[in-house]
């Protein structure tokens, strides 16, 4: 007989824990099978009122702390990352899970200073640079260590690529300490032991009977552990890439950053045609420092989201990224010394070759087809407009420019479509064809800008008589190669 569970929501992790979570949740009949899916919502057939949604793992602690979900499954490191900054009394850890055990280490380059003490003595006056996906844990570490001066560079990933040239310390999650050395890192301190965990919204835990959900889940966990289910003991993904020394912290010549991830294919094709493809860049990625095909050109591979900030700090002279991330950077730092050196055209892979574009999206049930109509609706609400986006500063600028007050921007790490309509009212999203948006019953109410590929440059380097000409020459070669290419889809 079905037990009634009034309005109980679970946040499920999209990505590395997805399949294991599906297996643990099987007794709840959520219809969540764990495979990669574009479906974000699930409803229990066994417990009416119980529903679940697929959310990016990094977003789950905040969403649970806000009470948008009663329960969530995510990596412990993301819980601690939130707690390091916001000691939310509304977030409670219920159960550690034997999934994806890892350690978060503070580490520094094996190829730079001989010791942390030497590094600290040399760099502390200018500020120890700490790069990490865990900026809050990094700040807490810096304060606890009483660093006199420090600077935190929040990253989307690939922290191991930065030391020693672009960072003095990194915080990285690895399987164990042995994983640091191949990535060119030496451990300074273990910060945190992490694995997947079940978390709960504290007020819900104190008021509601969660046993109908927790009992089958924990029983299933015990059964799977007894059966030695391999899914419950896999190592964390995101293994660090191999980093070899380049022997020079401040190399002469031009420093170029290439993107990993979804842009890697098209950028590989452009570089190949331009005669600039470095060895070790073409997928599958084997190194963050591929071998440059030309002398005087030094190449690193990092996340495209992180490029504008790194270029602004002069860690790179050139970088290939998307216009979306350049605009996100400019919205945050309007006076940034980052220039667009070349338009590399549409990076989109869609069948029709449509360009990627940044759009404002609402749920189809919202009676607004334009931003003006949305603004009129918001005025009658008794709460702020909730805007969810990976592009936090573009979203903030959009809301300011359109006078959408009062509003709140909810930062997300992805899977943003799933936020509508329960957890957000408006999304600022990237899309090519808009087909996913339409299929999910969402509506585009504004197009902010097109987001082609860009070659961006550090302005002071462009003014450098030695580097400037080399940078412009590289730009011209890339543009020529891009123009000679068929559509991206064909090129790939």
């Amino acid at each position: 007989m079905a037990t009634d569970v009034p309005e109980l929501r679970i946040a499920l992790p999209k990505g590395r824990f997805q399949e294991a979570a599906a297996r643990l949740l099987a007794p709840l009949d959520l219809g969540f099978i764990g495979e990669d899916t574009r479906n974000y919502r699930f409803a229990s057939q066994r417990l009416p009122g119980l529903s679940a949604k697929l959310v990016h793992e990094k977003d789950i602690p905040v969403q649970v702390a806000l009470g948008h979900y009663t329960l969530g499954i995510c990596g412990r490191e993301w819980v601690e990352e939130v707690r390091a900054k916001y000691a939310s009394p509304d977030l409670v850890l219920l159960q550690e899970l034997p999934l994806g055990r890892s350690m978060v280490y503070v580490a520094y380059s094996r190829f730079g200073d001989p010791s942390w003490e030497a590094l600290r003595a040399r760099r502390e006056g200018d500020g120890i640079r700490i790069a990490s996906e865990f900026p809050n844990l990094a700040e807490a570490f810096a304060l606890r260590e009483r660093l006199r001066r420090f600077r935190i560079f929040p990253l989307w990933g690939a922290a191991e690529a930065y030391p020693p040239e672009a960072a003095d310390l990194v915080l990285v999650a690895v399987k164990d300490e042995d994983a640091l050395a191949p990535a060119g890192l030496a451990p300074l301190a273990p910060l945190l032991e992490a694995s997947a965990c079940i978390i709960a919204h504290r007020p819900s835990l104190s008021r509601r009977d969660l046993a109908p959900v927790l009992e089958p889940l924990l029983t299933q966990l015990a059964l799977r552990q007894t059966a030695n289910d391999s899914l419950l003991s896999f190592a964390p993904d995101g293994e660090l890439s191999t980093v070899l020394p380049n022997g020079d912290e401040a190399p002469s010549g031009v420093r170029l950053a290439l993107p990993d991830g979804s842009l890697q294919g098209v950028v590989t094709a452009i570089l190949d045609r331009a005669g600039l493809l470095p060895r070790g860049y073409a997928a599958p990625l084997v190194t963050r420092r591929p071998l440059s095909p030309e002398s005087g050109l030094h190449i690193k591979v990092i996340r495209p989201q992180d490029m504008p900030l790194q270029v602004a700090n002069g860690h790179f002279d050139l970088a290939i990224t998307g216009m979306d991330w350049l605009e996100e950077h400019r919205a945050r730092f309007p006076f940034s010394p980052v220039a667009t050196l070349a338009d590399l055209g549409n990076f989109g892979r869609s069948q029709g070759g449509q360009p990627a574009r940044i759009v404002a999206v609402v749920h189809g049930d919202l009676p607004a087809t334009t931003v003006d109509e949305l603004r009129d609706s918001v005025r009658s609400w008794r709460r702020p407009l909730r805007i969810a986006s990976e592009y936090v500063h573009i979203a903030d600028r959009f809301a300011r420019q359109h006078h959408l007050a009062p509003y709140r921007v909810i930062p997300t790490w992805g899977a943003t479509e799933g936020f509508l309509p329960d957890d957000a009212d408006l999304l600022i999203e990237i899309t090519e064809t808009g087909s996913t948006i339409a299929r999910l019953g969402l509506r585009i109410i504004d197009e902010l800008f097109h987001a082609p590929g860009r070659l961006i440059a550090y302005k002071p380097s462009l003014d450098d008589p030695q580097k400037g000409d080399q940078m412009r020459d590289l730009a011209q070669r890339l543009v020529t190669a891009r123009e000679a290419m068929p559509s991206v889809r064909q090129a790939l």
Partner: protein
Amino acid sequence: MLVPRYRGARDWLPADMARFRRIEDTFRALAAKYGYQEVRTPTLEYLHLFTAAGTLNPDQLARVYSFLDWDGWSGERVALRPDGTIPTARLFLENLQPGSSLHTVRLCYVENVFAFSNELGERERWQCGAELLGGDETAADAELLLLACQVLGRLEAGPVVVRLSHAGLLKAVLRVLDLPSETESDFLDHLIAGHTTEAVRLADGQSEAARLLPLLFGVEAEGPGFVRNLATLTAEPWPEVAGQLERFLPLAETLTALERPYRIHLALDRGFEYYTGALFHLYVGDVRVGGGGRYDDLLPLIGGAPLAASGFALYMNALLPLLQVPPEAGDLRLILADRGRALPHAFRLADALRAEGWAVTLQVDGIQADSHPRVSIEEEGGVVRYRLRDGAGRDSVVLDQDAVLQWLRTSPS
């Protein structure tokens, strides 16, 4: 939808501002008489001014409001000033660093400081602060304490209780005990809470701890005799602690000689880490209304040469509820019977009256019932009439501005 004020902030209403200005004016006037010059530091400072080791502790730093500026791509954070002393020390080093001939600099300020607090606490607080850089230790500490007490006395907030302790002594005890870092925090918590038995337990095995810790931190006393007694008792086993007590003694003796009552309680809370010598806390009843102390090590921590320094701050948010609202200044009402034609006459008369020192309020929407003197102005056929009523209720009518001024000059109100 009404947008409420920011959580943890307060609105300063007219009655609050009247008391705020009274504190500020009293403090500024007295500080000036002691030779303190007023300065003001920026609300925004670089965060690393406060992260220098030994300035603010990690718990305090975790509550600092800091952010990246619009040109903060380098990751350099700026902070809303969380403390008054450190920025003033920075201001001194950057602008007023003495040459060899200048021995002492006295600075004062009225500033707000910001720190995150839970929902019940205030996140923006105002302070009247005084800092004395350079000079003799005992003379400086005594002067600052007397100034603080004198301000509080003038404000008539209530009987002031001065509690003294000594950061150098506490640090010396910690050095003697050499506790593991994870135990040190608990040890201090127990001392501050008055749980000396628990503190002794944590210092288990340390020579003389069981005997001396309760004496040092479990007794509240007054007068220099107590300090001398402790110095004598600690001289043999803990000479470093005795040295700090000897350093503390002249201040106790000076205050006693000045008949300035005080209590000695060596387990006062930890406060800022930059304190090195005498600490004083000021109470009115149970309300802590001020505090300060000696911070000889601060200037080198933020890039300056070593210099003796000491200071205090009065906590205006805490003081405010203890003060009476100052009586409203006497003023005068100008009432317009015919607002259109009489308005220019009213503005001219108001200017003339303000020049003579009156506070003048124009009333265009009827007569406010109060006892203030009033002038009603009407104009008919080019003739302006000024109907006067003084504070005693006597009436008169005059036809020109000079006559109004003359009548008010001779009015008994």
